[in-house]
């Protein structure tokens, strides 16, 4: 017998950029134009550190001076974190200014904004190698350590993930913290995953009880409270790094008010998945009201959709991976000189070309000079087509950086309705890109501001109807890779000129539908008409 296979190295341009989805003759989505403006925007921050900072490197995007423009906090690792106030004008060039905020703290790996005490001023949770810190917002972008005031036990771990929710009836949030390896185990750190923590409200409802260990814990790099089954009670999805756990897997915790957390298992339909879990992105890609999940990893990434959606009743947490079918495995560089496998970190679904379909950004970067993986590993920008497949446009769009990326955020920094991009790089400057496209579709941006606790409606769903399609976004705090956002929730509208929108609040209350005008900002408050919002002209 002769050997039946023939092997050869590919002509890189021909094979390595080809995905199954691309192999078919399909329409190319509108490719947005991004221009890197790091120098001009005056952003100068490097995520530094050695082994204990090989993961992490996050960014938080939030408005802390109440002007509607998102400001930026960048983790610095062993260097002090940096805060930048947004000085951009609407539609103008991205401009930031370093600002003494009280956040200039060392050993920060990532951060998530959340209004913990419901005072209308955003607070910030700092994930650290060491004690985590909740920074209370004082207004005008000043912050103070509130660990003592809010009885928050920051512990002493290598923290690497965050998620928050208001459990039913609670006036105070429940915060989940994911922790990584025992950093004091130099010789055999494998299998030394330290406990994740669940910080629930204390009896007073104005502070945190001692944290509850989420045992077993498997070296978590991303967490997300998400209402995966639309039951109205979000569960905690946890993505874990198989490099370090023993007997571990991806996890889904049932978190019910007043009850001990309980893991979903095979009896519930949960199927074992073991990956180098590094980031979670979530979006209802199929307009079926259920969120789909993108999980980053080394080599292949996963896109999970529910296997079965019953006509009646709740689905089981059984997912199938459609990353290959939809062209988002993103397992190797698609441009540049490298063909070694990729390493993916932060992921985020947003509509970057305003065509009404969520696109996918993935931050890529080698862990630490691992020779079997791409060293120059370009970030991905995968544009969704109408058939649900994705088109790689990172190089054409201008965001294919070859630096060692970690965290990131897509956000509209100059409030022109087009999403810009900021990315944190390990051992290199963070980068910021302005979306300078001139041919994108219409858009809509909504923020929630209800009185009392959970002011920004974490756990709510925003629905936008256009041309017979209902687009849905879950309002969450968590996910990605140590990078969080608060503020505007963006929808691309394509050529839609009118439609309607509503909010389903976290307690299940369905607000009434209201008409919207495209290319507008709205502030949504419970039982009130959504208020159009405009940035102050020339305020800057």
């Amino acid at each position, binding site marked *: 017998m002769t050997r039946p*296979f023939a092997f050869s190295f590919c002509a890189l341009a021909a094979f*390595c950029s080809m995905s199954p989805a691309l192999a078919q003759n399909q329409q190319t989505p509108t490719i947005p134009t991004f221009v890197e403006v790091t120098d001009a925007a005056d952003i100068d921050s490097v995520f530094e550190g050695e*082994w204990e900072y090989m993961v992490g490197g996050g960014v938080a995007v939030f408005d802390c001076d109440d002007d509607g423009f998102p400001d930026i906090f960048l983790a610095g690792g062993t260097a002090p974190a940096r805060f930048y106030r947004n000085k951009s004008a609407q539609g103008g060039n991205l401009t930031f200014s370093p600002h003494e905020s009280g956040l200039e703290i060392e050993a920060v790996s990532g951060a998530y904004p959340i209004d913990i005490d419901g005072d209308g001023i955003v607070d910030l949770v700092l994930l650290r190698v060491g004690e985590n810190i909740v920074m209370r917002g004082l207004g005008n972008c000043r912050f103070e350590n509130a660990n003592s005031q809010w009885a928050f036990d920051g512990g002493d771990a290598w923290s690497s993930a965050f998620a928050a929710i208001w459990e039913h009836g609670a006036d105070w949030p429940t915060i989940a913290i994911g922790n990584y390896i025992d950093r004091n185990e130099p010789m055999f750190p494998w299998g030394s995953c330290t406990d994740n923590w669940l910080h629930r409200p204390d009896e007073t409802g104005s502070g945190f009880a001692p944290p509850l260990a989420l045992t077993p814990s498997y070296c978590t790099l991303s967490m997300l409270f998400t209402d995966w089954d639309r039951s109205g009670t979000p569960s905690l999805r946890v993505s874990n790094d198989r490099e370090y756990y023993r007997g571990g897997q991806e996890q889904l915790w049932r978190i019910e008010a007043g009850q001990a957390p309980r893991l979903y298992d095979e009896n519930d339909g949960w199927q074992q998945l073991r990956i180098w879990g590094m980031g979670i992105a979530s979006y209802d890609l199929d307009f079926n009201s259920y969120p789909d999940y993108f999980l980053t990893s080394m080599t292949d990434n996963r896109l999970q959709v529910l296997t079965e959606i019953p006509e009646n009743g709740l689905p089981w947490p059984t997912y199938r991976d459609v990353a290959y079918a939809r062209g988002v495995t993103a397992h190797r560089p698609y441009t540049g000189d490298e063909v070694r496998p990729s390493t993916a970190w932060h992921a985020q679904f947003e509509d970057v070309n305003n065509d009404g379909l969520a696109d996918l950004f993935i931050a890529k970067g080698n862990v630490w000079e691992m020779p*079997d993986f791409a060293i120059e590993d370009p970030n991905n920008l995968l544009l969704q087509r109408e058939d649900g497949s994705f088109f790689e446009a990172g190089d054409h769009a201008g965001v294919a950086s070859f630096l060692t990326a970690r965290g990131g955020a897509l956000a509209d920094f100059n409030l022109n309705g087009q999403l810009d991009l900021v990315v944190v790089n390990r051992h290199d400057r963070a980068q910021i890109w302005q979306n300078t496209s001139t041919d994108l579709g219409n858009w809509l941006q909504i923020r929630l501001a209800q009185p009392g606790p959970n002011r920004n409606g974490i756990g709510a769903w925003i629905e936008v109807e256009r041309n017979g399609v209902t687009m849905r976004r879950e309002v969450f705090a968590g996910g990605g890779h140590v990078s969080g956002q608060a503020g505007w929730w963006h929808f691309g509208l394509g050529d839609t000129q009118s439609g309607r929108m509503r909010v389903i609040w976290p307690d299940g209350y369905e607000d009434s539908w209201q008409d919207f005008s495209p290319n507008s900002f709205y502030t949504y408050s419970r039982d009130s008409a959504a208020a159009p919002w405009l940035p102050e002209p020339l305020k800057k």
Partner: protein
Amino acid sequence: MGGVFRLASSFVRLFKRSAQKHTLRRNPAWNRLCGSHMRQYRDLLAAMIVATVLFQPMGAAAQAGANPQDVLFNWNRMVLELVRHTPTYSPPVASRSFAYLGVTAYEAVASGTDELKSLAGQLNELSLPPQRDPNAHYDEAAILHAALTHGVRNFFGNTGPTGQRAMNAMESQIETMVSASLDEQTLATSIAYGEAVAAHILEWSLTDGGALVENLGFPYEFEPGSSPQSWVPTSTIGLQQAPLLPNWGDNRTFAMPNGATCPVVEPPVYDAQAGSEFYTEAMEVYEAVQAIEPDEEAIARFWSDDPMLSPTPPGHWIAIALQLLRETDAELHDSVDLFARLGISLADSFIGCWHEKYLYDLLRPVTYINLHIDPDWRPILITPPFPEYPSGHSTQSGAAAAVLEAHFGPGFAFSDKTHERDGLGVRSYQDFWHAAEEAAISRLYGGIHYRVAIESGLDQGRCVGAFTNALVTWER
């Protein structure tokens, strides 16, 4: 007290070695005695020595260097972790490193004793490693540490940052232990010698065809076979749309002549017709999974040995060897002999098995069953991304059983604790062949191999193991 205990252990080893050299070496009863009663003798001796040492001038115990056996075991433990956590380490790649590191340790020790015979001239293209200067003074622990440090750093130079950090920590800790009671000259001479042996083995390794592993072992491009029985990808993992290491069967073997030396019988003729021999093979897999019993599923998962989630299948057998050498208080010469032999047999197994896999290019059960029996059927285990026939697990387990039986003797009962920390429990076996047969059938329970691949694999393993067992390591 630790030193006293080591001294006592040395007496026991001396006695064992003497006995093994003569009549008891292959006697299972002797092995059982070593495993249990010897601990009692060691304890008794320790008590006697404590009494003696109390009346000795200080310093006598301090002259004893570090225990080379500790060095050997610690580095092997580290290697098992590195195999698990280095992404290029698929099972064939792991087996190769086990073999070269085993030979490295063996040659480093063998050159210092008249008991052991070099493998040079016995293993394909291995020339005689550097020999010791008869006028120099060496320390066995320092030699082993230098040789293994050098070897491990090379074979795992591509591991991630945590592996690098762990190697540094181990090197530093053992170096401190080894150098504590040595004069500078002895330490330097020993380190230089250990490194020279490792360098010799490394140079030999570079020409075997397996030194360069790109893209985690998956070809960048792949043209599938055109026959209905041809293997096709079984997952939607982008990286695995081409099969793993298709040329591995062409690598230079260690103890057997080449990858074609131990052929397997041809598999049944492919046939999609219900009732055909091939269909029946597939139906057995299908039914085994559909009606699987809890213990059968436990067996499937216990021997799953997935890369990156375990020390891989060859690492499983190395872990068993490490555990048993510890439990039986094996002496150093026994240990290096077994690590070398086991590594060689595992490496040759994968070369031989891969040679046949890509010769027959057979599709996996999940492909056939989805096409002809049940389109929705899924196996219990993750189907490995390469052709089916024969079963690599079976080949390497057969070879390992042959080597371990030759070392510990027939009827050697043991409990396998490899996966205890992973929550998979401990499984017990009345001998190595029962373990190997269970490892082999686990692939049918898991839904990833036909029975014929399992039986052929075990046969191939016996053949491979015989070549390893024919190596001469003990001077007669």
